[in-house]
């Protein structure tokens, strides 16, 4: 393979060889990515500037300029509000999820009896939400049970609902009760969305050499110092991963995605739906760029 590529060319330098082999390794993955993620992405960009009609003759795409974007931002009644709410929710939840999952990963990395079971428990919401239960569509009671399993319904019955009832009877004002139950529901959201992030941090902590901790202990460092001077810098590249993952994860459930889906597949306005998705995409990208910029200044690489 190598000699074929070099045939008839001047001998390559070491750096060039490295670059070539690097590219060869990336190629199979890159092909898949281009076909199944990048091409559909570009097609949807084209759709967002067109009106798309599906008929027996096939799909006809007619260029209409910026009108879908204008419609989404100025005419559609729910788009602006949903966009703002989804992003605000994301900005509040993502940092909380990342901090909570780092905290739990450190706890779950310690040696105690039933550690694997404890890890499994925190990973459960991911399995429940990964579609195994949710996609069992049905109109029966099972669906209600499944929804309760996948969503927060059951938790509401068990926590905030009873809590709210008790506090109301005790004469606490309604505003306070609403605030508290809101906080409880958010805790549930955060716990149930942290499964993957905890795992990623755990894997990160496991790649830290135990010698570092031993050495710091000999020098008299406390556990608190060891966390900030060893654990935190060593897992800092993964904070970015987890921010990105939390944002993607927020996608699969939030109101914005529902609006995009309903516009596309219930009202069959596929152009408008694509335009909405692109506006949302750009807004999220801006947030991501800012957070990447802030985080990457703090990230520590071991080399």
């Amino acid at each position, binding site marked *: 393979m190598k000699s074929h590529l070099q045939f008839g060319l001047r001998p390559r330098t070491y750096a060039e060889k490295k670059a070539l*082999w*690097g*590219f060869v390794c*990336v190629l199979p*993955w*890159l*092909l*898949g990515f281009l076909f*199944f*993620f990048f*091409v559909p992405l570009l097609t*949807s960009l084209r759709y967002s500037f067109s009106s798309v009609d599906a008929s027996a003759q096939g799909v006809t795409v007619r260029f209409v300029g910026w009108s879908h974007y204008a419609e989404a931002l100025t005419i559609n009644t729910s788009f602006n509000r949903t966009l703002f709410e989804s992003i605000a929710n994301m900005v509040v939840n993502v940092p909380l999820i990342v901090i909570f999952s780092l905290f*739990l990963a450190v706890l779950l990395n310690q040696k*105690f009896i039933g550690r*694997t079971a404890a890890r*499994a*428990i*925190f990973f459960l*919401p*991911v*399995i429940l939400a*990964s*579609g*195994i*239960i949710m996609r069992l*569509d*049905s*109109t*029966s009671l*099972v669906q209600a*049970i499944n929804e*309760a*399993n996948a969503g927060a319904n059951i938790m509401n019955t*068990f926590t905030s609902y009873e809590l709210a009832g008790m506090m109301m009877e005790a004469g606490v004002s309604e505003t306070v009760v609403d605030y508290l139950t809101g906080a409880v529901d958010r*805790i549930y959201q955060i*716990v149930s969305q942290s499964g993957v992030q905890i*795992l*990623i941090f*755990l*894997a*990160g902590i*496991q*790649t830290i*050499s*135990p010698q570092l901790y031993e050495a710091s202990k000999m020098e008299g460092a406390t556990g608190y110092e060891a966390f900030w001077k060893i654990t935190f810098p060593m897992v800092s*590249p993964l904070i*970015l*991963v987890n921010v*990105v993952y939390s944002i*993607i994860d927020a*996608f699969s459930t939030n109101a914005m995605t529902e609006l*995009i889906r309903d516009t*596309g597949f219930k009202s069959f306005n596929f152009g408008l739906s*694509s335009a909405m*998705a692109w506006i949302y*995409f750009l807004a999220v*990208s801006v947030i*991501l760029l800012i957070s990447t910029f802030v985080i990457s200044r703090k990230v520590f*690489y071991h*080399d």
Partner: protein
Amino acid sequence: MRTIAVFRLSRKLNRSFATSLFLFVLLAVFGAFSALPLLYAVNNAFKPLDELFVFPPRFFVNNPTWDNFYDLVSLMGNSWVPLSRYIANTLLITIVGTAGHILLASAAAYPLAKYRFPGSRTLFSIVVLSLMFSGHVTAIPNYMVMSWLGWINTLTSIIVPSLAFPLGLFLMKQFMEQIPDALLEAAKIDGASEYRIYWTIVMPNVKPAWLTLMILQFPFLWGSDGGSFIYSENLKTLHYALGQITLGGIARAGVGAAVALILMVVPITLFIISQSSVIQTMATSGMKD
């Protein structure tokens, strides 16, 4: 209430004991949030039909019974396509999809993390940004790509895209960047080939990363129902087949609960196996900087 008690204890007892007790309580509280839905599903699967419909719903089962599972077996015995066919389809998708994804993603992540070639930074930014896009909007373009490739109604249409998910590359790259360059250079000076460095140094050192990736990818593919790409009954997945059973309405509620439990057990088992095999790696041991 409880925390006050812990603090009082801490004055007399060993402080680390009090701290760990406090942390244990904290873990238990958060854990309860996560574990309740599973407990509920387990209880439901063993409830007889009359208990399933009690209102208000009861959490724990009173008279546990295997009836729901017997019903499931007899129902599957009557199906037109044998159950083993669904299982084989699902296993093929999950195993090939998961293993292939880990291989392709890590092979692509290694040069992105350790060799800078022209355009590698741009490529990586595109990958990260593409993660941010809503799947519903790309559904129709995706279908058109599949039909252009002629892959509609084949298992390839599920397996091949799953190999190229952007998340795996992103995760593997971040982990591989943490391997010190000095380690790779030392191997090179000792005469190891790139291939050997990749298999005997890079991959073992990021074992926690690819085990995590496996845990992420497996339940996703396990829960795949063939989507809009597969319409032949004999190519459908186990998830789809069992899902159809619950379409029977109220009478199938008990069987549905049993189905939910069976589908959950496999990913959870895999998770426990893989987590207990994770060990500390030694990437940075012996480094003097």
